[in-house]
């Protein structure tokens, strides 16, 4: 079956999902290329583990394939639905897992060790990752969606199935906790007090 769009790359996610449900194999490839990196990154930021994030990403995408025949156009964005499924899968895993001590916080997968500046960036990322993992799950999810995925508060509210006001509150508390957590490491990581 051939794609119905002149430029499949510009087709909306929901249209591709419908094509997939109608048997278009190319639509699956395009959707996976578009959505899997975001799902994987989100899961990794929420879980702090690449291996677990891969499992969650595969499961979230599987749920997407399964819901495709029943997907109702215009009801929700595919990406919003997928972020929600991913977050729920991550929360389920986190509830089953023990808390991760700071010493066991995941390392940055960075094969470009070398320049001191790059090392320092990696250490900052590691510090933030570890601090994120010490946040309550809902605060972490809100902070990651806002500052990593760079989504707007209304979309975050939709993903988290809560109000925009609740998202603002989660973000404020989450960032305050992160700032307090990282305050002691700022000088160590090459930051001055004025930012």
């Amino acid at each position, binding site marked *: 079956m051939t794609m119905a769009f002149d430029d499949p790359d510009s087709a909306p996610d929901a249209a591709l999902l419908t094509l997939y449900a109608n048997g278009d194999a190319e639509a699956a490839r395009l959707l996976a290329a578009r959505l899997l990196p975001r799902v994987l990154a989100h899961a990794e930021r929420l879980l702090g583990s690449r291996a677990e994030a891969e499992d969650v990403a595969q499961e979230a995408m599987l749920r997407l394939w399964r819901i495709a025949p029943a997907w109702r156009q215009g009801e929700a964005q595919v990406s919003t639905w997928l972020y929600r499924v991913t977050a729920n899968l991550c929360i389920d895993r986190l509830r089953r897992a023990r808390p991760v001590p700071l010493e066991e916080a995941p390392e940055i997968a960075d094969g470009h060790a070398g320049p001191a500046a790059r090392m320092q960036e990696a250490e900052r990322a590691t510090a*933030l990752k570890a601090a994120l993992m010490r946040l309550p799950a809902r605060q972490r999810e809100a902070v990651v969606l806002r500052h990593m995925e760079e989504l707007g508060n209304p979309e975050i509210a939709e993903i988290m199935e809560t109000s925009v006001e609740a998202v603002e509150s989660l973000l404020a508390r989450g960032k305050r906790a992160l700032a307090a957590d990282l305050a002691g490491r700022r000088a160590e990581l090459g930051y001055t007090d004025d930012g």
Partner: protein
Amino acid sequence: MTDKPFSKSKQTARDPAKQAAEEAALAPFFDALRPEAAAPSEALMARVLADAAREQAATGADERRPVARPATPPARRLLGWIGGWPVLSGLATATLAGIWIGVNPPAPLAAPVGTLTTALLPGAGAGEATYLVDLDLEASFALADAEGAMQ
């Protein structure tokens, strides 16, 4: 957030300057972490696409698969051919009626002959079964004449 002073919680009623300082302090950390998201491995992508193909095939097979119907017993199939229970009960009634009429013909069928023979056989009463062999020879001729006259 709300403008009502009494509804401000300790969590949300915050100094904007302090919030801005927190944002500035966290920004470099977010900047450092944001590009970290690595692309999915080829192995993961292959697993995801394999799932997609399998689910797509399963869905397609479901749509194409004819609905399995339970085997129909021969008697029920025959019943279906002749038109179902209403037709079968009608047939049964007609069959029984035919047998009954054959064994014990009702009076109206014998009435024309009976009417004639009553006249020709003074001893035979109405409703009494009368047969041609009961007539004597002359009466048979008279009956034949009478039938010829009726036609």
